[in-house]
């Protein structure tokens, strides 16, 4: 028996969305003339579009459902994933790192590693990233199908195939532009689909004061109880600040090609630098649609009554709230928002995969130096392969029970050490080619070894989340130390080769004539607002 029953109006809303996406993809087809059009939207998009896409690429349905669940489980501390775990990294990317990414005209993150370090470093990153994106795409697809089966009673295989075909069509036609446009549409659908739950929830429990009056202490504070790991998260301040806020967050936001690709699609360097900074403002507001529903769920849903043990999984909190508050009609809108964010998550992964595959693997190791038209064709057909592998992966990930933790796990294996490689590469001219490679490799291995030791019980933490945060920290530290160590004993790069790639060897980008268009000003404002929010919900 499905949890939610839809009627004709809901299906009309879902069908309308799919129709618009396919039409947008089709209308972009005629602009896809070169590889750069297909893989980087011709570097032509304005900052507001790339900024919203940058945010939405991360605002997947799993993320939203998982964060509502975290909020029901851990309370207000969930805001750390936003105000500590995202804003500083996004601002850092825009203000300090984007000049090297965009300014060096690289097309992918691995390509930067090739220019700054060597071919081996690029290969390591390109291959691990390609595997990771396909895994993520499969996860997204399977999770979507599973959710729609439980929630609406849709058969698993049909959901997987329909979503895969729609994504395939619009990415095949429109490449990154399709992906980005879908993300922007998704951004508005998510807010419009979930805000009714926030309003009705707050109305029923008596506003935010009502929540404060009815929920017990530790769940209401973000920072106050972080002195020890004896708090709802089971993580102490060091784990939150260094593991999540520094390593995981910077590793994800500044080196994950899935998000960086959006900034690279900007029309000029100002727009590229503003992309993550524009994204940081709505990012700060996302807790409104995830944290408040999580807390409301504790108060209004009998399944999560605090008097007894929960009778449902926290991951169901958002779905149960939809059922609780939304009548058919707006309900269809909320379902469409989830569908959109699943499909755009998959599309984003597939586009990142075909770009990395075409430029960094196929164009580097398999067929070098072919004309651009050849790579455009390869990219288009890689889309089909990527979707096919995703479908296969969807059936593999069935065996993993907690998808959210699994995602964190993958991030911390690959992304966390990578941030040390980038940090040293962009800001220390002494980092050598082989220093970069060995640092990255040892970092990834450290994460893997830490994970094994934790799983076999040799290392203990208060929670799985604490294990993930600390794992990221140790992987980062290992990469950082090994990169420096190996660099001291290997051949330095000629500083002339590093112009445009390394801070201090690159002329500073001219400050914008008008102060209100300067990324640093907006970045500082974003940080100030994030600090204020942290203090407000201390």
């Amino acid at each position: 028996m499905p949890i939610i029953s839809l009627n004709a109006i809901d299906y009309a809303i879902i069908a309308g969305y799919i129709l618009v996406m396919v039409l947008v993809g089709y209308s972009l087809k005629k602009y896809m003339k070169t590889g750069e059009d297909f893989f980087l939207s011709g570097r032509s998009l304005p900052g507001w579009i790339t900024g919203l896409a940058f945010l939405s690429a991360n605002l997947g349905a799993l993320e939203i459902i998982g964060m509502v669940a975290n909020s029901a489980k851990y309370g207000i501390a969930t805001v750390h994933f936003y105000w500590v775990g995202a804003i500083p990294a996004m601002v850092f990317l825009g203000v300090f790192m984007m000049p090297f990414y965009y300014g060096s005209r690289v097309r992918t993150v691995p390509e930067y590693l090739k220019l700054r370090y060597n071919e081996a470093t690029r290969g390591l990153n390109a291959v691990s990233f390609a595997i990771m994106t396909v895994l993520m795409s499969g996860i997204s697809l399977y999770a979507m199908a599973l959710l729609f089966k439980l929630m609406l009673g849709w058969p698993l295989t049909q959901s997987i195939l329909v979503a895969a075909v729609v994504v395939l069509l619009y990415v095949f036609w429109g490449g990154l532009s399709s992906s980005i446009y879908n993300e922007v549409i998704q951004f508005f659908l998510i807010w419009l689909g979930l805000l009714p739950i926030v309003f009705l929830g707050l109305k029923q429990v008596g506003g935010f004061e009502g929540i404060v009056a009815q929920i017990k202490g530790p769940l209401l504070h973000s920072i106050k109880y972080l002195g020890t790991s004896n708090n709802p998260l089971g993580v102490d301040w060091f784990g939150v600040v260094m593991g999540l806020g520094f390593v995981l967050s910077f590793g994800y936001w500044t080196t994950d090609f899935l998000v960086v690709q959006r900034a690279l699609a900007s029309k000029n360097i100002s727009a590229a630098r503003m992309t993550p900074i524009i994204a940081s403002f709505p990012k700060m507001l996302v807790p409104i649609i995830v944290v408040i529903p999580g807390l409301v769920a504790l108060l209004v849903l009998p399944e999560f009554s605090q008097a007894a043990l929960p009778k449902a999984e926290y991951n169901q909190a958002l779905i149960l709230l939809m059922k609780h508050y939304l009548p058919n009609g707006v309900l269809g809108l909320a379902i469409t928002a989830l569908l959109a964010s699943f499909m755009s998550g998959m599309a984003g992964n597939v586009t990142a995969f075909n770009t990395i595959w075409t430029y960094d693997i196929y164009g580097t190791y398999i067929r070098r130096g072919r004309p651009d038209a050849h790579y455009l064709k390869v990219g288009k057909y890689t889309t089909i392969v990527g979707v096919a592998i995703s479908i296969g992966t969807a059936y593999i990930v069935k065996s993993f029970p907690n998808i959210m933790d699994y995602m964190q796990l993958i991030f911390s294996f690959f992304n966390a050490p990578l941030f040390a490689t980038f940090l040293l590469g962009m800001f220390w001219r002494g980092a050598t080619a082989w220093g970069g490679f060995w640092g990255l490799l040892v970092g990834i291995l450290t994460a893997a070894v830490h994970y094994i030791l934790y799983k076999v019980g040799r290392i203990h933490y208060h929670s799985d989340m604490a294990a993930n945060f600390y794992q990221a920290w140790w992987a980062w530290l290992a990469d950082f130390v090994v990169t420096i160590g190996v660099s001291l004993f290997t051949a330095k790069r000629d500083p002339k080769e590093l112009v445009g790639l390394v801070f201090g060897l690159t002329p500073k980008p001219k400050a914008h004539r008008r102060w209100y268009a300067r990324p640093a000003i907006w970045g500082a404002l974003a940080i100030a607002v994030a600090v204020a929010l942290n203090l407000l919900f201390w």
Partner: protein
Amino acid sequence: MSDTNGTKGQETPDSGEGMSHGHVLDLKLPIGWLLSAYGVLLTVYGLLTKKEMYAISLGLNLNLVWGILMIFVGGGFLLAAFLKRRRTTG
């Protein structure tokens, strides 16, 4: 390029080569049409449905209220697209 940049063309001294051909699709149009179509659909549905259906949304006719709101949001995008087009052609 006219659609993506409008009047701010002179802001891009550092943009370099390779961006001569913008993607001409103005995203404000599909967003505007989709959201206002949803708005109209929800508003009409809200007017046609009975009060009992809205017991779960605390007695509020959510389809009507949210439909009207979405007509405004979607209309805003269409208006912005229309104004930009008029500014760049005229």
